[in-house]
Protein backbone atom coordinates (compact mmCIF):
# COMPACT_ATOMS: atom_id res chain seq x y z
CA UNK A 1 0.00 0.00 0.00
CA UNK A 2 1.20 3.51 -0.81
CA UNK A 3 -0.06 6.53 1.05
CA UNK A 4 0.59 10.08 -0.08
CA UNK A 5 -0.11 12.90 2.34
CA UNK A 6 -0.64 16.52 1.44
CA UNK A 7 1.80 16.64 -1.48
CA UNK A 8 2.79 20.07 -2.76
CA UNK A 9 5.24 20.68 -5.59
CA UNK A 10 6.42 24.03 -6.80
CA UNK A 11 8.71 24.81 -9.75
CA UNK A 12 9.90 28.38 -9.28
CA UNK A 13 6.73 30.44 -8.96
CA UNK A 14 4.54 27.74 -10.49
CA UNK A 15 2.69 25.60 -7.94
CA UNK A 16 1.96 22.37 -9.83
CA UNK A 17 0.60 20.20 -7.01
CA UNK A 18 -1.56 21.68 -4.28
CA UNK A 19 -1.96 19.37 -1.32
CA UNK A 20 -2.80 15.98 -2.78
CA UNK A 21 -3.53 13.06 -0.47
CA UNK A 22 -4.53 9.53 -1.48
CA UNK A 23 -4.14 5.85 -0.59
CA UNK A 24 -3.19 3.33 -3.29
CA UNK A 25 -4.02 -0.22 -2.26
CA UNK A 26 -2.25 -3.39 -3.35
CA UNK A 27 -3.82 -5.67 -5.96
CA UNK A 28 -5.63 -2.69 -7.48
CA UNK A 29 -5.11 -0.56 -10.55
CA UNK A 30 -4.87 2.95 -9.14
CA UNK A 31 -5.30 5.48 -11.91
CA UNK A 32 -4.28 9.13 -11.83
CA UNK A 33 -6.16 10.99 -14.54
CA UNK A 34 -6.49 14.60 -15.57
CA UNK A 35 -5.98 16.97 -18.44
CA UNK A 36 -2.63 18.01 -19.84
CA UNK A 37 -0.71 20.12 -17.30
CA UNK A 38 -2.88 19.00 -14.39
CA UNK A 39 0.15 17.58 -12.55
CA UNK A 40 -0.30 13.81 -13.12
CA UNK A 41 3.27 13.00 -14.12
CA UNK A 42 4.68 15.41 -11.54
CA UNK A 43 2.69 13.59 -8.85
CA UNK A 44 3.98 10.22 -10.10
CA UNK A 45 7.56 11.51 -10.06
CA UNK A 46 7.08 12.85 -6.53
CA UNK A 47 5.82 9.44 -5.39
CA UNK A 48 8.78 7.51 -6.84
CA UNK A 49 11.32 10.11 -5.70
CA UNK A 50 12.37 11.51 -9.08
CA UNK A 51 11.08 14.87 -7.81
CA UNK A 52 11.25 15.91 -4.18
CA UNK A 53 7.88 17.26 -2.99
CA UNK A 54 8.00 20.83 -1.72
CA UNK A 55 5.80 19.69 1.15
CA UNK A 56 4.11 16.46 2.19
CA UNK A 57 5.28 12.87 2.31
CA UNK A 58 4.94 9.45 0.76
CA UNK A 59 4.71 6.18 2.67
CA UNK A 60 5.46 2.78 1.17
CA UNK A 61 3.80 0.19 3.43
CA UNK A 62 4.19 2.55 6.37
CA UNK A 63 7.81 3.52 5.64
CA UNK A 64 8.28 7.25 5.19
CA UNK A 65 10.05 7.53 1.84
CA UNK A 66 10.37 11.28 1.28
CA UNK A 67 12.82 12.01 4.09
CA UNK A 68 15.04 8.98 3.36
CA UNK A 69 18.60 9.37 2.03
CA UNK A 70 19.67 7.82 -1.29
CA UNK A 71 21.09 4.75 0.48
CA UNK A 72 18.00 4.33 2.69
CA UNK A 73 15.77 4.41 -0.39
CA UNK A 74 17.61 1.61 -2.21
CA UNK A 75 15.75 -1.31 -0.50
CA UNK A 76 12.40 0.29 -1.43
CA UNK A 77 13.59 1.13 -4.93
CA UNK A 78 14.42 -2.54 -5.48
CA UNK A 79 10.72 -3.25 -4.93
CA UNK A 80 9.65 -0.63 -7.47
CA UNK A 81 9.09 -1.33 -11.15
CA UNK A 82 8.32 1.48 -13.53
CA UNK A 83 7.16 1.66 -17.12
CA UNK A 84 7.99 5.03 -18.67
CA UNK A 85 5.99 6.87 -21.30
CA UNK A 86 8.65 6.18 -23.95
CA UNK A 87 9.62 2.85 -22.37
CA UNK A 88 13.13 4.18 -21.50
CA UNK A 89 14.85 0.99 -22.61
CA UNK A 90 18.64 1.16 -22.68
CA UNK A 91 19.51 1.62 -26.36
CA UNK A 92 22.93 0.00 -26.13
CA UNK A 93 21.56 -3.24 -24.66
CA UNK A 94 19.55 -6.06 -26.18
CA UNK A 95 16.07 -6.89 -24.92
CA UNK A 96 17.50 -9.65 -22.73
CA UNK A 97 20.26 -7.42 -21.34
CA UNK A 98 17.68 -4.74 -20.52
CA UNK A 99 15.68 -7.21 -18.46
CA UNK A 100 18.76 -8.73 -16.84
CA UNK A 101 20.21 -5.31 -15.95
CA UNK A 102 18.54 -4.92 -12.51
CA UNK A 103 19.21 -8.60 -11.80
CA UNK A 104 22.92 -8.12 -12.59
CA UNK A 105 23.14 -5.28 -10.11
CA UNK A 106 20.91 -6.41 -7.29
CA UNK A 107 20.58 -10.19 -7.32
CA UNK A 108 22.95 -13.03 -6.55
CA UNK A 109 21.52 -15.22 -9.32
CA UNK A 110 23.82 -17.16 -11.64
CA UNK A 111 23.92 -16.17 -15.31
CA UNK A 112 21.65 -19.05 -16.34
CA UNK A 113 19.15 -18.19 -13.60
CA UNK A 114 19.09 -14.58 -14.79
CA UNK A 115 18.54 -15.72 -18.37
CA UNK A 116 15.73 -17.99 -17.19
CA UNK A 117 14.14 -15.09 -15.34
CA UNK A 118 14.48 -12.84 -18.41
CA UNK A 119 12.89 -15.53 -20.58
CA UNK A 120 10.07 -15.95 -18.06
CA UNK A 121 9.40 -12.21 -18.02
CA UNK A 122 9.48 -12.06 -21.82
CA UNK A 123 7.12 -15.02 -22.00
CA UNK A 124 4.82 -13.24 -19.55
CA UNK A 125 4.52 -10.30 -21.95
CA UNK A 126 4.26 -12.58 -25.03
CA UNK A 127 7.64 -11.65 -26.46
CA UNK A 128 9.49 -14.95 -26.56
CA UNK A 129 12.36 -15.21 -29.06
CA UNK A 130 12.99 -11.45 -29.05
CA UNK A 131 15.88 -11.70 -26.58
CA UNK A 132 18.63 -10.65 -28.95
CA UNK A 133 16.88 -7.71 -30.59
CA UNK A 134 17.83 -4.13 -29.76
CA UNK A 135 15.17 -1.57 -28.74
CA UNK A 136 15.54 0.21 -32.10
CA UNK A 137 14.32 -2.98 -33.81
CA UNK A 138 11.05 -3.10 -31.83
CA UNK A 139 7.66 -1.52 -32.47
CA UNK A 140 6.15 0.91 -29.93
CA UNK A 141 3.89 -1.78 -28.44
CA UNK A 142 6.77 -4.25 -28.17
CA UNK A 143 8.93 -1.63 -26.43
CA UNK A 144 6.16 -1.12 -23.87
CA UNK A 145 5.98 -4.85 -23.28
CA UNK A 146 9.75 -5.11 -22.86
CA UNK A 147 9.47 -2.15 -20.45
CA UNK A 148 6.88 -4.11 -18.46
CA UNK A 149 9.08 -7.23 -18.55
CA UNK A 150 12.00 -5.20 -17.17
CA UNK A 151 9.75 -3.62 -14.54
CA UNK A 152 8.61 -7.03 -13.24
CA UNK A 153 12.04 -8.70 -13.43
CA UNK A 154 12.76 -7.98 -9.76
CA UNK A 155 9.25 -9.10 -8.71
CA UNK A 156 8.21 -5.61 -7.59
CA UNK A 157 5.67 -4.83 -4.90
CA UNK A 158 4.92 -1.48 -6.52
CA UNK A 159 4.44 -0.84 -10.23
CA UNK A 160 4.31 2.68 -11.65
CA UNK A 161 3.17 3.25 -15.19
CA UNK A 162 3.36 6.59 -16.99
CA UNK A 163 1.00 6.94 -19.97
CA UNK A 164 1.09 3.26 -21.00
CA UNK A 165 -1.02 3.82 -24.11
CA UNK A 166 0.56 6.94 -25.58
CA UNK A 167 1.44 6.40 -29.23
CA UNK A 168 -0.26 2.99 -29.42
CA UNK A 169 -3.21 1.89 -31.53
CA UNK A 170 -6.44 1.08 -29.62
CA UNK A 171 -6.00 -2.70 -29.94
CA UNK A 172 -2.41 -2.67 -28.64
CA UNK A 173 -3.50 -0.29 -25.87
CA UNK A 174 -6.04 -2.84 -24.67
CA UNK A 175 -3.39 -5.59 -24.74
CA UNK A 176 -1.08 -3.44 -22.58
CA UNK A 177 -3.90 -2.55 -20.17
CA UNK A 178 -4.90 -6.20 -19.81
CA UNK A 179 -1.31 -7.20 -19.21
CA UNK A 180 -0.89 -4.61 -16.47
CA UNK A 181 -4.20 -5.68 -14.94
CA UNK A 182 -3.24 -9.39 -14.99
CA UNK A 183 0.13 -8.72 -13.35
CA UNK A 184 -1.48 -6.50 -10.70
CA UNK A 185 -4.04 -9.16 -9.79
CA UNK A 186 -1.65 -12.11 -10.05
CA UNK A 187 1.20 -10.71 -7.93
CA UNK A 188 -0.92 -8.40 -5.74
CA UNK A 189 1.13 -5.42 -6.86
CA UNK A 190 0.28 -1.86 -5.90
CA UNK A 191 -0.07 -0.38 -9.36
CA UNK A 192 -0.25 3.35 -10.01
CA UNK A 193 -1.03 4.37 -13.59
CA UNK A 194 -0.97 7.87 -15.01
CA UNK A 195 -3.22 8.06 -18.05
CA UNK A 196 -5.69 10.14 -19.96
CA UNK A 197 -6.88 7.20 -22.03
CA UNK A 198 -10.58 6.70 -21.38
CA UNK A 199 -10.48 3.03 -22.45
CA UNK A 200 -8.00 2.40 -19.62
CA UNK A 201 -10.12 4.39 -17.19
CA UNK A 202 -13.28 2.44 -17.98
CA UNK A 203 -11.50 -0.90 -18.45
CA UNK A 204 -9.12 -1.25 -15.50
CA UNK A 205 -9.81 1.74 -13.22
CA UNK A 206 -10.33 0.06 -9.84
CA UNK A 207 -9.45 3.27 -8.06
CA UNK A 208 -9.24 6.61 -9.83
CA UNK A 209 -8.14 10.04 -8.69
CA UNK A 210 -8.86 12.96 -10.98
CA UNK A 211 -6.52 15.96 -10.87
CA UNK A 212 -7.63 19.40 -11.94
CA UNK A 213 -5.29 22.40 -11.77
CA UNK A 214 -2.98 20.62 -9.33
CA UNK A 215 -5.72 19.57 -6.90
CA UNK A 216 -7.52 16.29 -6.38
CA UNK A 217 -10.94 17.12 -7.80
CA UNK A 218 -12.56 13.67 -7.61
CA UNK A 219 -11.90 10.13 -6.34
CA UNK A 220 -13.77 6.91 -7.04
CA UNK A 221 -13.86 3.88 -9.32
CA UNK A 222 -14.74 3.32 -12.98
CA UNK A 223 -18.21 2.28 -11.86
CA UNK A 224 -18.81 5.67 -10.26
CA UNK A 225 -17.44 7.78 -13.06
CA UNK A 226 -20.53 7.69 -15.29
CA UNK A 227 -22.74 8.94 -12.49
CA UNK A 228 -20.61 11.73 -11.13
CA UNK A 229 -21.92 15.25 -11.00
CA UNK A 230 -18.39 16.69 -10.83
CA UNK A 231 -18.40 19.22 -13.64
CA UNK A 232 -14.63 19.19 -14.30
CA UNK A 233 -14.54 15.40 -14.46
CA UNK A 234 -17.57 15.29 -16.77
CA UNK A 235 -15.93 17.86 -19.05
CA UNK A 236 -12.76 15.77 -19.11
CA UNK A 237 -14.18 12.25 -19.49
CA UNK A 238 -17.15 13.00 -21.70
CA UNK A 239 -15.48 15.65 -23.81
CA UNK A 240 -16.51 14.23 -27.18
CA UNK A 241 -20.02 13.83 -28.57
CA UNK A 242 -19.37 10.10 -28.88
CA UNK A 243 -18.55 9.62 -25.19
CA UNK A 244 -21.41 11.93 -24.21
CA UNK A 245 -23.79 9.77 -26.26
CA UNK A 246 -22.38 6.63 -24.62
CA UNK A 247 -22.94 8.19 -21.21
CA UNK A 248 -26.53 9.10 -22.06
CA UNK A 249 -27.23 5.47 -22.95
CA UNK A 250 -26.05 4.28 -19.51
Amino acid at each position, binding site marked *: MIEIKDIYKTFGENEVLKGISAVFESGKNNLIIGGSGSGKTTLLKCI*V*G*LHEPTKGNVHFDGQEFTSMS*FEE*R*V*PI*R*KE*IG*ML*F*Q*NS*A*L*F*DSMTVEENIM*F*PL*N*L*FSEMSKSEKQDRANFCLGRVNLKDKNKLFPAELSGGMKKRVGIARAIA*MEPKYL*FVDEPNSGLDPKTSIVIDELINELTQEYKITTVIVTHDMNSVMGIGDHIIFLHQGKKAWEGSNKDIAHTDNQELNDFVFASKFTQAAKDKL
Partner: protein
Amino acid sequence: MFHTLGRYILLIQLSFRKPEKFKVYWAEVMREMVSIGVGSMGIISIISVFIGAVATIQVAFQLASPLVPKSTAGSIARDSTILEFSPTISALVLAGRVGSSIASQIGTMRVTEQIDALEIMGVNAPGYLIAPKIIAGIVMVPLLVIYSMVLGILGGYLACAITGSIPTSDYIMGLRDGFNPLIIQVALVKALCFGFIITSICAYQGFYTSGGALEVGQSATTGVVYSCIFILFADLVVTSVML
Protein backbone atom coordinates in the same frame (compact mmCIF):
# COMPACT_ATOMS: atom_id res chain seq x y z
CA MET B 1 29.20 30.36 -12.09
CA PHE B 2 29.57 29.21 -8.47
CA HIS B 3 26.27 27.33 -8.79
CA THR B 4 27.61 25.46 -11.83
CA LEU B 5 30.95 24.77 -10.15
CA GLY B 6 29.20 23.46 -7.03
CA ARG B 7 26.90 21.25 -9.06
CA TYR B 8 29.86 19.92 -11.05
CA ILE B 9 31.81 19.07 -7.87
CA LEU B 10 28.77 17.38 -6.31
CA LEU B 11 28.19 15.33 -9.46
CA ILE B 12 31.81 14.14 -9.51
CA GLN B 13 31.54 13.31 -5.80
CA LEU B 14 28.33 11.32 -6.45
CA SER B 15 30.01 9.50 -9.32
CA PHE B 16 32.59 7.98 -7.01
CA ARG B 17 30.20 6.52 -4.45
CA LYS B 18 30.61 2.83 -3.63
CA PRO B 19 29.29 0.85 -6.61
CA GLU B 20 26.28 -1.45 -6.22
CA LYS B 21 28.21 -4.32 -7.80
CA PHE B 22 31.88 -3.92 -8.63
CA LYS B 23 31.81 -6.52 -11.44
CA VAL B 24 29.15 -4.62 -13.42
CA TYR B 25 31.03 -1.33 -13.05
CA TRP B 26 34.33 -2.97 -14.00
CA ALA B 27 32.74 -4.26 -17.22
CA GLU B 28 31.61 -0.69 -17.96
CA VAL B 29 35.14 0.66 -17.35
CA MET B 30 36.55 -1.90 -19.79
CA ARG B 31 33.91 -1.03 -22.39
CA GLU B 32 34.67 2.67 -22.05
CA MET B 33 38.42 2.03 -22.30
CA VAL B 34 37.90 0.26 -25.60
CA SER B 35 35.58 3.02 -26.81
CA ILE B 36 37.88 5.91 -25.78
CA GLY B 37 41.24 4.22 -26.36
CA VAL B 38 40.95 1.80 -29.26
CA GLY B 39 38.21 3.88 -30.88
CA SER B 40 40.45 6.96 -31.01
CA MET B 41 43.62 5.31 -32.31
CA GLY B 42 42.81 6.00 -35.96
CA ILE B 43 42.38 9.75 -35.67
CA ILE B 44 45.30 10.05 -33.21
CA SER B 45 47.55 8.13 -35.64
CA ILE B 46 46.71 10.43 -38.53
CA ILE B 47 47.12 13.73 -36.67
CA SER B 48 50.29 12.60 -34.87
CA VAL B 49 52.16 11.57 -38.01
CA PHE B 50 51.23 14.80 -39.80
CA ILE B 51 51.98 17.06 -36.84
CA GLY B 52 55.37 15.40 -36.30
CA ALA B 53 56.20 15.74 -39.99
CA VAL B 54 55.09 19.38 -40.22
CA ALA B 55 56.88 20.35 -37.00
CA THR B 56 60.15 18.83 -38.24
CA ILE B 57 59.95 20.49 -41.67
CA GLN B 58 59.16 23.90 -40.14
CA VAL B 59 61.93 23.69 -37.55
CA ALA B 60 64.39 22.62 -40.26
CA PHE B 61 63.29 25.61 -42.38
CA GLN B 62 63.75 28.09 -39.51
CA LEU B 63 67.18 26.72 -38.54
CA ALA B 64 68.61 27.00 -42.05
CA SER B 65 71.85 28.52 -40.80
CA PRO B 66 75.31 27.02 -41.34
CA LEU B 67 76.11 27.92 -37.71
CA VAL B 68 73.39 25.70 -36.23
CA PRO B 69 73.92 21.92 -36.39
CA LYS B 70 71.14 20.21 -38.37
CA SER B 71 70.59 17.76 -35.52
CA THR B 72 69.17 20.65 -33.46
CA ALA B 73 66.02 20.45 -35.57
CA GLY B 74 65.54 16.86 -34.35
CA SER B 75 65.89 17.95 -30.70
CA ILE B 76 63.43 20.83 -31.08
CA ALA B 77 60.93 18.68 -32.99
CA ARG B 78 61.22 15.98 -30.28
CA ASP B 79 60.68 18.39 -27.38
CA SER B 80 57.82 20.26 -29.00
CA THR B 81 56.12 17.02 -30.06
CA ILE B 82 56.44 15.39 -26.65
CA LEU B 83 55.73 18.48 -24.54
CA GLU B 84 53.06 20.24 -26.51
CA PHE B 85 51.83 18.80 -29.77
CA SER B 86 51.12 15.23 -28.69
CA PRO B 87 49.33 15.96 -25.39
CA THR B 88 47.53 19.18 -26.28
CA ILE B 89 46.56 18.64 -29.91
CA SER B 90 45.55 15.03 -29.13
CA ALA B 91 43.45 16.26 -26.20
CA LEU B 92 41.73 18.91 -28.34
CA VAL B 93 40.93 16.29 -30.96
CA LEU B 94 39.75 13.86 -28.28
CA ALA B 95 37.51 16.56 -26.81
CA GLY B 96 35.78 16.65 -30.17
CA ARG B 97 35.60 12.92 -30.70
CA VAL B 98 35.20 11.47 -27.20
CA GLY B 99 33.74 14.49 -25.40
CA SER B 100 30.91 15.08 -27.84
CA SER B 101 30.09 11.37 -27.80
CA ILE B 102 29.94 11.31 -23.98
CA ALA B 103 27.80 14.46 -23.73
CA SER B 104 25.37 13.35 -26.43
CA GLN B 105 25.15 9.78 -25.11
CA ILE B 106 24.37 10.86 -21.54
CA GLY B 107 22.19 13.74 -22.76
CA THR B 108 20.11 11.38 -24.89
CA MET B 109 19.74 9.04 -21.93
CA ARG B 110 18.51 11.98 -19.88
CA VAL B 111 15.88 13.21 -22.35
CA THR B 112 14.63 9.69 -23.07
CA GLU B 113 14.20 8.99 -19.33
CA GLN B 114 16.84 6.24 -19.30
CA ILE B 115 18.61 8.00 -16.41
CA ASP B 116 15.29 8.18 -14.54
CA ALA B 117 14.90 4.44 -15.16
CA LEU B 118 18.33 3.83 -13.59
CA GLU B 119 17.43 5.94 -10.56
CA ILE B 120 14.09 4.18 -10.12
CA MET B 121 15.94 0.84 -10.01
CA GLY B 122 18.09 2.20 -7.16
CA VAL B 123 21.20 2.55 -9.32
CA ASN B 124 23.50 5.48 -8.59
CA ALA B 125 23.18 6.92 -12.12
CA PRO B 126 26.23 9.25 -11.95
CA GLY B 127 28.31 6.37 -10.62
CA TYR B 128 27.20 3.96 -13.33
CA LEU B 129 27.36 6.43 -16.22
CA ILE B 130 30.12 8.91 -15.33
CA ALA B 131 32.72 7.18 -13.13
CA PRO B 132 33.64 4.49 -15.72
CA LYS B 133 34.10 7.21 -18.35
CA ILE B 134 36.34 9.31 -16.10
CA ILE B 135 38.45 6.28 -15.11
CA ALA B 136 38.72 5.22 -18.76
CA GLY B 137 39.65 8.79 -19.71
CA ILE B 138 42.45 9.20 -17.17
CA VAL B 139 43.88 5.79 -18.11
CA MET B 140 43.48 5.86 -21.89
CA VAL B 141 44.32 9.51 -22.71
CA PRO B 142 47.91 9.17 -21.33
CA LEU B 143 48.30 5.91 -23.29
CA LEU B 144 47.03 7.61 -26.43
CA VAL B 145 49.45 10.48 -25.82
CA ILE B 146 52.39 8.04 -25.55
CA TYR B 147 51.20 6.45 -28.79
CA SER B 148 50.94 9.92 -30.32
CA MET B 149 54.49 10.84 -29.23
CA VAL B 150 55.92 7.75 -30.92
CA LEU B 151 53.98 8.39 -34.13
CA GLY B 152 54.84 12.13 -34.07
CA ILE B 153 58.54 11.40 -33.91
CA LEU B 154 58.11 8.76 -36.60
CA GLY B 155 56.28 11.37 -38.70
CA GLY B 156 59.28 13.68 -38.31
CA TYR B 157 61.58 10.88 -39.47
CA LEU B 158 59.38 10.21 -42.50
CA ALA B 159 59.37 13.93 -43.34
CA CYS B 160 63.19 13.96 -43.23
CA ALA B 161 63.38 10.83 -45.37
CA ILE B 162 60.86 12.06 -47.96
CA THR B 163 61.73 15.75 -48.24
CA GLY B 164 65.42 15.55 -47.40
CA SER B 165 65.20 18.79 -45.38
CA ILE B 166 67.48 17.17 -42.76
CA PRO B 167 69.48 13.95 -43.18
CA THR B 168 67.75 11.17 -41.20
CA SER B 169 70.98 10.44 -39.32
CA ASP B 170 71.06 14.07 -38.07
CA TYR B 171 67.40 13.82 -37.07
CA ILE B 172 68.06 10.67 -35.05
CA MET B 173 71.15 12.25 -33.47
CA GLY B 174 69.00 15.25 -32.54
CA LEU B 175 66.41 13.00 -30.94
CA ARG B 176 69.09 11.50 -28.69
CA ASP B 177 70.89 14.74 -27.80
CA GLY B 178 70.17 16.31 -24.42
CA PHE B 179 67.07 14.26 -23.71
CA ASN B 180 65.51 15.17 -20.36
CA PRO B 181 63.01 12.52 -19.07
CA LEU B 182 61.13 15.27 -17.22
CA ILE B 183 59.39 16.24 -20.46
CA ILE B 184 57.75 12.80 -20.58
CA GLN B 185 56.53 13.25 -17.01
CA VAL B 186 55.14 16.69 -17.82
CA ALA B 187 53.39 15.34 -20.91
CA LEU B 188 51.82 12.46 -18.97
CA VAL B 189 50.63 14.72 -16.14
CA LYS B 190 49.05 16.95 -18.79
CA ALA B 191 47.44 13.94 -20.46
CA LEU B 192 46.01 12.73 -17.15
CA CYS B 193 44.50 16.16 -16.45
CA PHE B 194 43.14 16.39 -19.99
CA GLY B 195 41.55 12.92 -19.71
CA PHE B 196 39.75 14.03 -16.55
CA ILE B 197 38.70 17.37 -18.03
CA ILE B 198 37.27 15.92 -21.26
CA THR B 199 35.27 13.13 -19.63
CA SER B 200 34.01 14.97 -16.55
CA ILE B 201 33.00 18.24 -18.23
CA CYS B 202 31.24 16.53 -21.12
CA ALA B 203 29.54 14.05 -18.77
CA TYR B 204 28.36 16.97 -16.63
CA GLN B 205 26.93 18.76 -19.66
CA GLY B 206 25.15 15.59 -20.78
CA PHE B 207 23.83 14.71 -17.33
CA TYR B 208 22.08 18.03 -16.85
CA THR B 209 20.56 18.21 -20.32
CA SER B 210 16.88 19.05 -20.36
CA GLY B 211 14.56 19.26 -23.32
CA GLY B 212 14.98 17.29 -26.52
CA ALA B 213 17.23 16.60 -29.49
CA LEU B 214 18.19 20.26 -29.91
CA GLU B 215 19.36 20.54 -26.31
CA VAL B 216 21.36 17.30 -26.61
CA GLY B 217 23.26 18.87 -29.52
CA GLN B 218 23.77 22.07 -27.53
CA SER B 219 25.10 20.07 -24.54
CA ALA B 220 27.60 18.29 -26.78
CA THR B 221 28.77 21.58 -28.28
CA THR B 222 29.03 23.28 -24.89
CA GLY B 223 30.87 20.28 -23.46
CA VAL B 224 33.46 20.35 -26.26
CA VAL B 225 33.94 24.13 -26.06
CA TYR B 226 34.41 24.13 -22.26
CA SER B 227 36.69 21.10 -22.47
CA CYS B 228 38.92 22.86 -25.01
CA ILE B 229 39.12 26.00 -22.89
CA PHE B 230 39.97 24.06 -19.73
CA ILE B 231 42.49 21.89 -21.62
CA LEU B 232 44.38 25.03 -22.66
CA PHE B 233 44.13 26.45 -19.14
CA ALA B 234 45.37 23.20 -17.57
CA ASP B 235 48.18 23.08 -20.17
CA LEU B 236 49.36 26.49 -19.00
CA VAL B 237 49.10 25.59 -15.30
CA VAL B 238 50.92 22.24 -15.58
CA THR B 239 53.63 23.71 -17.80
CA SER B 240 54.27 26.65 -15.48
CA VAL B 241 54.28 24.45 -12.37
CA MET B 242 56.42 21.58 -13.66
CA LEU B 243 58.91 23.30 -15.97
